[in-house]
């Protein structure tokens, strides 16, 4: 049986992981290379490196960070944040990424999805969608970290992304993000039912039960775990233990 994936996300600013996890064996809590390997050893099914550098100077270190992180990592590795063009994507793949995650660049120029998919395959293209609430209450695609509404419906845009060649959708509910009150199971479920490609749920996790819920009620194919490790879940292994005990199929033992 296909298992549900736990994807560990590293938020990187100028080559340093911010809000990093406290591994006891880790000398440098900000080193993405060490963190990625420890997450992989702890049972993470994939690693996402998200560049959140605010400055151009900070972003310049991205390729070097990707290269070093990918070097000894033998599970799927996705890179996102600031990928605007085909050339950006190409250089990230060259540095060792297996997939790229694109967000606002895909909204402003949807052809980018197809261009990357044609060259690297659909499995290499993750379209990230930040879902906010539209004026009519329906979920609406937002960009710039939820600050700008686009007028596009989330389900419509996700279907378009799939048709254009996206291999997976990474759905972040802006309403839930940062609340630690749980994932948006309802929207995740709706999206999963209207798409054939996998949906990765993100935003709102506060405890292990939230992951159980997003898999069982939200029918998510994967869930992104970013900063949850600060709130009492100590490792991917511990999270997977809970999922396994709750009857969610996961890669276990890991």
């Amino acid at each position: 049986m296909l298992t549900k994936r736990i994807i560990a996300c590293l938020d990187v600013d100028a080559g340093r992981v911010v809000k990093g996890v406290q591994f006891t064996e880790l000398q440098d809590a900000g080193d993405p290379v060490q963190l990625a390997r420890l997450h992989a050893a702890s049972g993470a099914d994939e690693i996402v490196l998200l560049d959140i550098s605010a400055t151009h100077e900070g972003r310049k270190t991205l390729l070097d960070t990707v290269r070093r992180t990918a070097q000894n990592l033998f599970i799927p590795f996705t890179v996102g944040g600031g990928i605007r063009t085909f050339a950006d994507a190409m250089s990230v793949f060259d540095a060792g990424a297996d997939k790229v995650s694109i967000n606002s660049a895909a909204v402003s120029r949807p052809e980018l999805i197809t261009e990357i998919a044609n060259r690297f395959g659909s499995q290499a293209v993750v379209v990230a969608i930040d879902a906010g609430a539209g004026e009519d209450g329906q979920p609406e695609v937002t960009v710039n970290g939820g600050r700008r509404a686009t007028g596009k419906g989330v389900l419509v845009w996700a279907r378009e992304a799939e048709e254009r060649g996206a291999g997976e959708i990474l759905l972040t509910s802006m309403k839930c993000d940062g609340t630690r009150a749980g994932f948006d199971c309802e929207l995740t479920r709706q999206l999963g039912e209207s798409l054939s490609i996998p949906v990765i749920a993100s935003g709102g996790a506060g405890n292990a039960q939230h992951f159980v819920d997003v898999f069982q009620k939200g029918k998510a194919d994967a869930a992104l775990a970013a900063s949850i490790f600060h709130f009492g879940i100590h490792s991917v292994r511990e999270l997977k233990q809970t999922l396994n005990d709750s009857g969610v199929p996961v890669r276990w033992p890991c």
Partner: protein
Amino acid sequence: MIAIVDYRAGNMTSVLKAFRFIGAGAAVTSDPDVVRLADAIVLPGVGHFASTRVLDDLHLRAPISEAIEAGKPFLGICVGMQWMFAGSAEAPGVSGLGLLREECKRFGTEVKSPHVGWNKVCMRGQSRLLHEIEDGEFFYYTHSYSGIMSKDCVAVTEYGGEFPAVIERGRAFGVQFHPEKSGEAGLRVLKNFQEFAC
């Protein structure tokens, strides 16, 4: 030296990196002469079956086919494994190697497609490639089409029915999963393959 055949279908970096990590001499190449001289051949693959047409454009079919006939170790990964079949419903008219006479088919509508993620590989026979790997070990998959069950299938994975996870015919091997992305177990598969190459 292991030749990793580059037919411009996606990224070869990860396969190369994995072989280098286990200490194997490997190089990415599109040169038929380099493929002829190699001790072993790896045909990776992601994306569309139609991209294997490039193997003909680059005159790579003959050296691969001759190497397999001569008993040189060969490993097809994902689409590279599918190419060992006669063809695929994904790209009618594009010929595979025909080592197995069936055509690859798409997953049925009862399951989501593509099949993306970690799934169990269950033994169905004596597998040399899975030597010292536990029955039921997890490997990473990403594909919408799969091969057809036959006597050469030594391990299967369940997704809307069983499909071949590993095929072995002489020293020609095919894996539908991505060993280069399947952690320790995946590296072990590559190591097992490398041992045939020495």
